[in-house]
């Protein structure tokens, strides 16, 4: 049965002008571009049957005046399959067990379009004989790499650990497309784990190629293999679904020196040199073939910028620990000295499901990692903050590197500690957009809502003599994960009600923010509306229904007075709440609870951890704030947050209780 690409279509429509595109319907794996150089590109697609492939291309969507030669095509099938007598046969597709492999009827066609000019946009269409298979849509296009050494900018996307096929992956992709707007990506780096759970052929089709189809049809994804792909693909022999899906340079076809393997390679885009390494299943030691190739590659590149990427991060305390795990330690101890002696500027990795971005650093090869004496600039790298990082012009040894762990592309995120060289640590889903123009590199983390969550900039000019900071700035230690503090406790069975369920509260539900004193006891809320708790929409659990909230505002403010005659038992008072997605509570004007919101208040709050109410009340003790209670009149004020403006529901249903001894 042919796969349909409904998910892709939805995504494309949401994605805005960067990706509006009709999906191709007759493909087992929709067309995508690979191995771009300044004079050629490879088109790859799969069908569920033999076909008579014809590729027409040209410089305008309406003028596809050139046709690929049959001699520039190959067809790949599972071992033992036959057909397509007219087309040269390529290497067999990977055959593992039936769950790991493509179906027997599948054909993979690979067509090289040659004789192209550098830095030009070409449109293409795929035909089966005379029958057009790709729709007449301008998104079926590509741009060749600029001629080697050309001074030109490059805009690229970096994402890692994304291939779950889940909502977070799609949201991160949508967020990137939203942030991209009308701009076009020049290329796309994937730092591995693009096909959970074992990198099988069907997982590649469903969790990678189908999801990113609108981008892959016109933008080359240059990959690094992750451990999940490594379950079925092997760097040592270059066999497996990963190696079937990607076509990577082995002979320096796109710049760089020949590696003789697709497991590690390099390529150029203008004056930027990109290096991809296999940190998963090859020898990572300085004596290994990969390290030898890396040295030779670094010797030859004449680029102004050097970007390296692979899967296992040399510095992380996200869901992985670079002080404890062998692959991570080896990449730091063995590979980073080679790269920094060769002048690397930025390293992108994944594996650890978090965003961690370092200060400008060099020589941090010890285990455990320490920041002392390895940081050149401990500022935030933001021109509007502490200022951009400064480096010497060109590629200079040991002149400073920024490390970026972008394993937050879709899989479950987390943090187990604090890596001392990091400047920005975000436990949020997202990905990186990077722009290099002349002597400036700007990297941003875009979250799944399309918002910028981090920015760093590197400026290269003249000669910069770096100085090592003995005791650099240090990131805040990770808060110990306390599931009870974060999500509350089950309701205590024995409690006395202080503000009953469904009580009337003053509330403000509008786009405009309230007076900044709104949570204080003396604030006059007489102009606010009154209504019974809970407040919300969409899930049929609300007494005060906020019909206008969806697509208009994300925050609802509520206030309620209560009396206390006796302060001796206030440590047993707590808030009971059913909530979706998050809230911040204030007692007499002081913040006493923050649940599901990382920072900020009101409309400027950020970092939401989405939560479904499901009709359940959770108990949050206020014992730690017992000093804030007053004898007599007290005011509890709560701002309820919806994680997304267009969320399908919202709930804020609070009441106040005191537990019994």
């Amino acid at each position, binding site marked *: 049965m042919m796969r349909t690409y409904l998910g892709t279509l939805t995504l494309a429509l949401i994605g805005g002008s960067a990706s509006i595109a009709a999906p191709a319907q007759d493909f087992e794996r929709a067309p995508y571009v690979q191995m771009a150089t300044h004079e050629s590109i490879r088109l790859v697609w799969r069908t569920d049957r033999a076909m008579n492939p014809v590729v027409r291309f040209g410089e305008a969507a309406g003028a596809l005046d050139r046709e690929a030669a049959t001699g520039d095509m190959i067809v790949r099938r599972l071992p033992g399959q036959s057909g397509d007598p007219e087309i040269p046969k390529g290497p067999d597709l990977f055959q593992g067990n039936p769950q790991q492999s493509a179906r027997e009827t599948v054909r993979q066609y690979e067509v090289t379009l040659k004789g192209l000019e550098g830095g030009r946009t070409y449109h293409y269409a795929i035909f089966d004989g005379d029958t057009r298979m790709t729709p007449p849509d301008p998104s079926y296009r590509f741009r060749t790499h600029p001629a080697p050494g050309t001074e030109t900018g490059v805009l690229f996307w970096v994402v890692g650990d994304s291939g*779950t096929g*889940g909502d977070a992956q799609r949201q991160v992709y949508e967020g990137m497309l939203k942030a991209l707007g009308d701009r076009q990506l020049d290329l796309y780096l994937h730092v591995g784990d693009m096909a*959970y*759970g*074992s990198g099988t052929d069907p997982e590649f089709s469903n969790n990678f190629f189908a999801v990113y189809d609108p981008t892959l049809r016109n933008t080359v994804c240059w990959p690094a293999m992750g451990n999940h792909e490594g379950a079925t693909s092997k760097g*040592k*022999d270059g*066999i497996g679904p990963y190696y079937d899906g990607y076509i990577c340079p*082995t*002979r*320096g076809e796109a710049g760089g*020196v*020949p*590696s*003789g*393997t697709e497991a590690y390679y390099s390529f150029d885009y203008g004056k930027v040199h990109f290096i991809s390494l296999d940190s998963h299943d090859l*020898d990572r*030691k*300085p*004596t*290994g*073939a990969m*390290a*030898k*190739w890396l*040295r*030779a*590659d*670094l*010797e*030859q*590149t*004449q680029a102004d910028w050097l970007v390296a990427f692979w899967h296992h991060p040399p510095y992380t305390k996200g*869901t*992985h*620990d670079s002080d*404890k*795990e*062998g*692959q991570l330690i080896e990449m730091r*101890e*063995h590979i980073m*000295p*080679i790269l*920094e*002696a*060769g002048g690397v500027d930025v390293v992108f990795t994944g594996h650890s*499901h978090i965003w961690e971005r370092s200060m400008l650093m*060099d*020589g941090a*090869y*010890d285990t455990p990692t320490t920041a002392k004496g390895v940081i050149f600039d401990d500022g935030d790298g933001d021109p509007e903050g502490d200022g951009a990082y400064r480096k010497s012009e060109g*590629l200079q*040894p*040991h002149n400073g590197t920024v490390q970026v762990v972008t394993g937050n592309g879709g*899989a*479950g*995120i*987390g943090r*187990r500690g604090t890596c001392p060289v990091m400047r920005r640590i975000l436990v949020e889903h997202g990905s990186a957009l990077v722009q290099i123009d002349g002597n400036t590199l700007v990297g941003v983390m875009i979250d799944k809502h399309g918002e910028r969550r981090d920015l760093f900039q590197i400026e290269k000019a003249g000669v910069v003599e770096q100085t090592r900071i003995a005791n650099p700035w240090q990131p805040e230690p990770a808060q110990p994960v306390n599931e009870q503090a974060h999500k509350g406790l089950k309701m205590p069975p024995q409690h006395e009600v202080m503000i009953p369920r469904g009580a009337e509260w003053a509330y403000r539900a509008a786009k405009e923010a309230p007076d900044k004193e709104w949570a204080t006891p003396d604030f006059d809320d007489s102009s606010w509306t009154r209504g019974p708790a809970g407040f919300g929409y969409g899930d049929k659990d609300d007494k005060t229904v906020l019909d206008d909230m969806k697509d208009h505002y994300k925050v609802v403010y509520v206030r309620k007075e209560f009396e206390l005659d006796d302060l001796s038992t206030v440590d047993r008072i707590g808030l009971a709440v059913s909530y979706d997605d998050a809230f911040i509570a204030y007692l007499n004007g002081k913040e006493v609870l923050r649940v599901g919101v990382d920072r900020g208040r009101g409309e400027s709050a950020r970092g939401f951890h989405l939560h479904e109410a499901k009709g359940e009340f959770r108990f949050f003790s206020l014992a730690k704030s017992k000093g804030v209670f007053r004898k007599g009149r007290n005011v509890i004020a709560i701002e309820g947050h919806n994680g997304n403006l267009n969320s399908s529901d919202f709930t804020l249903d609070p009441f106040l209780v005191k537990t019994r001894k």
Partner: protein
Amino acid sequence: MRPLATIGGCLLLLAAEVAGHHGPEEVVAELTAQLEMDPENVELLSRRATEYRALGMHAQAEADLRLVLGKHPQSIADTESLARVLWARGKCPEAMDMIQRAVELAQPGRERAAGWILKSEWELEQGRTDAALAACRNAFQEDPEGMVDWYLLRSRIEERLGRPADRLAGLKAGHEALKSIVLRNAWVDAALDAGHLDEAAPVIETELAKSRLKSSWWIRRARLRLGAGDPDGGTQDLKAAVVELDRRIHLQRPDAKLLVDRAQARALLGDLDAARDDLALAREHGADPWEVGRLANRIREEAKPTP
């Protein structure tokens, strides 16, 4: 065909991995929890062994792999894994048996060739150089194109056995087959070692003209010039190499190969004490013992008083 329960267990595991965090400790914990319900699930045991190996917990990995192979003695991947674990644990005779078994179990072609290469590495480490070469040759018979590492391994064995012609020919063939620059550079070094200066010279000049970082090529040209009776030219190249290497070598944590290069340059300049210091540091930072050893021998030779 594996039992359905196994597949179900794996699906559960994968679901857990996708949904949650999965550092190796967590994966081990998840696998252990599932193994409590399904203690003979070989897929889970094999996965846990992989995670144990990533954590350097070889004893635990060995225990799991033995259970796996008890159920599935034909599993090549698990046999190879157990061989490496036993090797890492110093259980040499049993490691050798496992390596031999991996070779026997493998399918003809690249899979079996990889087994022979493992055996070759093992023999070389045991000091049985002839046996190492024989295993390596078997690998190339199984898969004539080979992999970059295989050619490098064979070159090293042939150098140790004093077969410069075979070494040169093998590296040349490897470069022609794979186009790997690592093999091309290894061939240049082998040509210099063998005194085939005319063959190496054009490559060295081309690389010097186009390379951004030139120290390794300056050292090669110095060897060429010294060999051709041009000591002034050689000295000039070596001094240039040392200047560049000084700039690239990180004082606390250097790339060990750069230290070996500087040691070689200093030795050729006659500064043997400095060369020894660099070599000692290189050894400390994980330099290739083979490269360090051969350079140390040369330094010893240089240091001998002229009769």
